């Protein structure tokens, strides 16, 4: 396994140049050039027969690190399982990890490093929407398949490409999965409150379309600037007639929202509904009932009992988390389960596509892309989230979703939404197969 490394700072140039120093420099340069030549030829050879380098771009530090920890753990587990099973097409997998620092600029820079320096032929990418959207043009430019794990719909939409894939859901899919049930069971008058950036606005737009199409009313949206500490001025603007309060915050802002809305007793006046991203890596017990009664749309049910099969059981055993709260009791960390599975399963999707296409080196990558388009993944140890399809047109994963409610600090399943239902409501809006490879 390789990690991103920092080069030593260069020494300041010396002003004087002697014959001896010139000869030393020339000799060193010659040696470096020779080494580089052998390095290049060795690398070309390795590409066709040595280990397959797969990059993992994840958030080990910064604001998303509570998720990134699990994405990293999933990737490590996938590579271990694959290598123990004989690798990909008989070749070992070498994992190259790059920490994005939860920062789009750093994430994009490190993606280049993963592909160009560490020679990653494929990249399992970030869950941070900003990083993912900054990375897709780079992966496309460098003709490297890139799996997004974030939810901004643009990754497999207006900013997607032939090289961009996502096995999980986006805001388009989450709206299609959740709105019909929520309209029927929670109410028809909606207010949406979200962070004032792309992810929140994307949720608002996708949900609004479906709610209004189904005859519901959507009140004026409430966009909260990132970093807001006191939410009272925003919560005070929620109309009295609201039946469903849909929120999509992340991390600390999410906890602040649930805490402050609960203390203002909004949960007694309206139904509260959200997506799993707002409670990811958080144990409801740790926020003392602030999410009690809130409905969440999940991509992977947190307790084992709501998708009770051997693959799910084995997966949570590998992750070292308990079957109810998905928590590692030793570290106290809660698994970011609704998203992190992608950083596990994407390696197996790549394995299937590489083996199906007969990939040997980067020149064969177009074959892998064609194999990924329309790839069906069966419920198995390789795909513990469940059977899914990577739709050929828009490279989007079609997966089962789960509507759950927090009751006594546990996630309780209310409705299983099969992928077939989702696909029927989710016509592809893009066809990347028209893009040349």
């Amino acid at each position, binding site marked *: 396994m390789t990690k991103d490394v920092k080069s030593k700072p260069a020494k300041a140039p010396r002003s004087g140049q002697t014959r001896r120093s010139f000869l030393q420099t020339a000799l060193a340069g010659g040696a470096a050039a020779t080494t580089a030549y052998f390095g290049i030829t060795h690398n070309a050879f390795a590409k066709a027969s040595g280990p397959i380098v797969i990059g993992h771009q994840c958030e080990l530090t910064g604001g998303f690190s509570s998720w990134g920890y699990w994405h990293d753990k999933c990737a490590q587990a996938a590579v271990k399982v694959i290598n123990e099973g004989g690798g990909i097409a008989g070749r070992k997998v070498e994992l190259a990890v790059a920490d994005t620092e939860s920062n789009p600029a750093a994430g994009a820079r490190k993606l280049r490093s993963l592909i160009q320096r560490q020679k990653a032929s494929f990249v399992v990418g970030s869950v941070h929407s900003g990083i993912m959207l900054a990375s897709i043009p780079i992966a496309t430019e460098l003709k490297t398949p890139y799996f997004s794990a974030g939810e901004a719909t643009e990754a497999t939409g207006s900013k997607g490409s032939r090289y961009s894939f996502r096995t999980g859901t986006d805001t388009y899919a989450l709206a299609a999965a959740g709105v019909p049930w929520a309209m029927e069971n929670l109410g028809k008058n909606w207010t949406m409150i979200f962070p004032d950036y792309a992810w929140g606005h994307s949720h608002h737009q996708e949900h609004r379309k479906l709610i209004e199409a189904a005859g519901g009313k959507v009140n004026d949206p409430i966009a909260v600037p990132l*970093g807001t500490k006191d939410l009272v001025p925003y919560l*005070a603007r929620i109309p009295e007639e609201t039946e469903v309060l849909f929120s999509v915050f992340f991390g600390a802002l999410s*906890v602040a929202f649930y*805490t402050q809305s609960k*203390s203002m007793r909004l949960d007694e006046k309206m139904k509260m509904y959200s997506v799993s991203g707002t409670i990811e*890596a958080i144990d409801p017990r740790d926020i003392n009932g602030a999410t009690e009664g809130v409905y969440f749309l999940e991509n992977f049910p947190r307790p084992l009992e709501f998708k009770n099969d051997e693959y799910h059981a084995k997966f949570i055993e590998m992750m070292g988390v308990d079957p109810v709260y998905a928590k590692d009791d030793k570290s106290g960390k809660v698994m970011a389960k609704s998203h992190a599975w992608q950083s596990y399963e994407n390696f197996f999707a790549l394995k299937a596509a590489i083996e199906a296409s007969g990939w040997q080196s980067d020149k064969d990558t177009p074959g892998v892309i064609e194999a990924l388009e329309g790839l069906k993944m069966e419920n198995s140890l390789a795909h513990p989230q469940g059977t899914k399809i990577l739709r050929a047109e828009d490279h989007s994963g079609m997966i089962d979703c789960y509507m759950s409610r927090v009751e006594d600090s546990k996630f309780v399943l209310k409705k299983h939404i099969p992928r077939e239902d989702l696909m029927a409501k989710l016509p592809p809006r893009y066809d990347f197969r028209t893009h040349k490879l």
Partner: protein
Amino acid sequence: MELVIALGMNGIVWGLIIALIALGLSIIFGLLDIINIAHGDFFMVGTVLAWFVFDTTGNYWLAFAIVPILGFAIGAVIEYTVIQPIKNAAALSIVATFGLSIILQESVRATFGATPARLTAPIEETVPLFGLEYEVYRLFAALLSIAAIGCFFLFLHRTKLGTWMRAVRFDPETATAMGIPARRVYMVTFAIGFAMASLGGVVAGPITTVDFQAGVDILPFCFMAVIIGGLGNLEGTVAAAVMLAFFEGVMASFVDPTLARIGSLCLMSAVLLVRPHGIFSGSTR
């Protein structure tokens, strides 16, 4: 009209909490000329320590007593190891405190973890107030902030150490010549600044959240209060924090709260243009 009053009052409450935190920033700048980029992280450390005390003992009130003392001790150590070596170098202080900020954040991330937590308010009741279900704890937090700020000013004006602090701030050379231990006063001042920010963390913790980046977003508002109040002007900082938050609260009842924040930034810009040394620049520094 009810919404105007409610949000204006909420602004005052929030402004008082911010004033408590910003006061520490102002003290540190006023005496040491340190532009403390890590001050928000002092607040964050306060919230984390409060969470830890509550998690360990189950007693939130204990955090009020213990955390400022711990904050004072940590502040003294930081002053000795980080601030003292770069004293009288404003540019270096920015770099050093920026580095300190990263160290504090990553230390908390490595130990406490990256997942945000909630500190349960010791008073969970609400009261209907001008059309809002308003947390009683917020009112309590405002009273506590007033008490803490009042105690600080009493300390500054009624104790020997407070007099020394004012003397060193006014003229360090003469104060030293008069036998005041300036070196020790610097350390105590910085430590008090940390203690006040961490007390702000205990007070605000149940309202906001506990996480390793909690200080990042609170810092700009503190700087706004310090700049509008006049750099190093302690009374001005308190008044500016309350005025700013009240202004934003009232504005938020008429326009989008985001526009209200833009409005307060415009107000700060206008103040800087008209009175570059702050609204209360006539007072002592």
